[in-house]
């Protein structure tokens, strides 16, 4: 068994064993879907934009993947706190492998969460426009998951304590979510906002999902794909660098 594999498996086992957490983490996306999806539906319809549940579902799926992957990646902080990190740091294995195991595990967990929410969306009335595009949508989910798992791991390597967690949540994760266009269309935004949304990596993930799932595109698939791949690669390198520098 390789190091990457056992650490990947570890993330998966931890996820499966925390059933309460699985249910709890589905609550938030469900709330967004029901409250916003059905609450804003009539307004959205009147504005001539069509069915809001249909529009917002890819955004909610992206949100789930974002939260799940970034928090799993930051699970490094808990490993540090409960001491398991030390065990991995003194092990005679390249730290890159430890980091990759963590990132892939976190990404897999995020994918599962995303799929569960996709099923919930389907039950709520969401329909995919073209079934043939589903594999492409899964690819985008995977990219979002890898990107933010790498980001979470990088952050978890750089900050040392849990207090920093709240800061990251308020000043990074929430803005990434709200400015990604998960909840509203990115067209015809005021100047500053349209610039900021362009800088948000999740915007390209949401756009990719929306394009593949419901056929509405803002940046275009080529742009979505290349931005996500490039940023994921950069973050993986940054993450492994920061992880290799950890001292305990």
């Amino acid at each position, binding site marked *: *068994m390789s190091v990457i594999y056992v650490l990947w498996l570890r993330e998966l086992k931890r996820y499966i064993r925390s059933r309460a957490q699985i249910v709890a983490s589905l609550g938030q996306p469900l709330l967004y879907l029901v409250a916003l999806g059905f609450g804003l539906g009539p307004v959205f319809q009147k504005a001539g934009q069509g069915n809001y549940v249909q529009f917002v579902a890819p955004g909610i799926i992206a949100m789930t993947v974002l939260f799940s992957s970034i928090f799993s990646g930051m699970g490094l902080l808990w490993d540090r706190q409960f001491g398991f990190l030390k065990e991995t740091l003194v092990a005679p294995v390249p730290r890159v492998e430890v980091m990759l195991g963590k990132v892939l595990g976190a990404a897999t967990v995020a994918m599962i969460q995303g799929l569960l929410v996709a099923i919930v969306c389907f039950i709520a009335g969401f329909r995919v426009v073209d079934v043939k595009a589903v594999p492409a949508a899964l690819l985008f989910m995977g990219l979002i998951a890898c990107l933010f798992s790498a980001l979470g791991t990088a952050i978890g390597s750089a900050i040392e304590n849990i207090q920093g967690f709240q800061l990251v949540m308020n000043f990074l994760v929430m803005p990434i979510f709200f400015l990604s266009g998960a909840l509203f269309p990115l067209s015809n935004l005021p100047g500053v906002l349209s610039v900021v949304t362009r800088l948000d990596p999740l915007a390209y993930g949401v756009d990719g999902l929306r394009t593949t799932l419901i056929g509405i595109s803002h940046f275009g698939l080529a742009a979505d794909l290349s931005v996500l791949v490039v940023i994921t690669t950069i973050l993986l390198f940054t993450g492994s660098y920061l992880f290799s520098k950890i001292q305990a």
Partner: protein
Amino acid sequence: MIQVKNLVKKFGEFTAVDHISFEVGRGEIFAFLGPNGAGKTTTIKMLTTLLRPTSGTLEIDGLDPGAHPNEVRKRFGIVFQDPSLDGDMTAWENMEIHGVFYHVPRKVRVERTEQLLRLFELWERRNDQVKLFSGGMKRRLEIARGLLHTPKILFLDEPTLGLDPQTRNQLWTHVKYLNQTEGVTVFLTTHYMDEAERVAQRIAIIDHGKIVAEGSPEELKRQTGKESLEDAFLVLTGSTVREESATNADQMRQMAKMWGNRR
């Protein structure tokens, strides 16, 4: 096997380890003793690639931990002072992950895991998550895990803290056995002077980051004119109790408790 020259570690203004030098020979059992906060764990962290020294040189089996961390990591095993188990995994899985980390072949891993879990009386509970274990059981598992692979050097940082006499006896018997049969070099710290006296061939006493005495248990007793190592230790390090500030990790643990974390 271990060579340390003029080793210094500063945390900001505070000097945790202050120009210490010592050597541990191949196959030796060496005890590093000192009051709380004397710099024992900091020294071990530097030897085990977890911290980089401020200045001075280190050599493990002829290798510098700063320059060749992975080569050095292949040569030692460690039982940490603080917990380092994964509470969500079972005892068996903790052993398994460790075995994979240290490239122990599958067959050997399975055999030794069973042998060690039986030795430390954890076999019946092998499929239980570690977070359900008592303090003593966790400690035993840490030790069993540290012994899963056969390293050239074994670091034991207060391994017997909170263990009952039976388990302590098991541990030291096993450590001595490894030392004699496999020639494992042992570097240990402990607060139990009787253990140090019983197991260690050589002892260094560290206080306020400096080594204040070094020699065999007999030499230290002779040097101070005391009957027991405990008295010799008190003469060398004084009898005042040390203030220790809470470490970052302790603070985090408190925060986690406050937030009602599930572990």
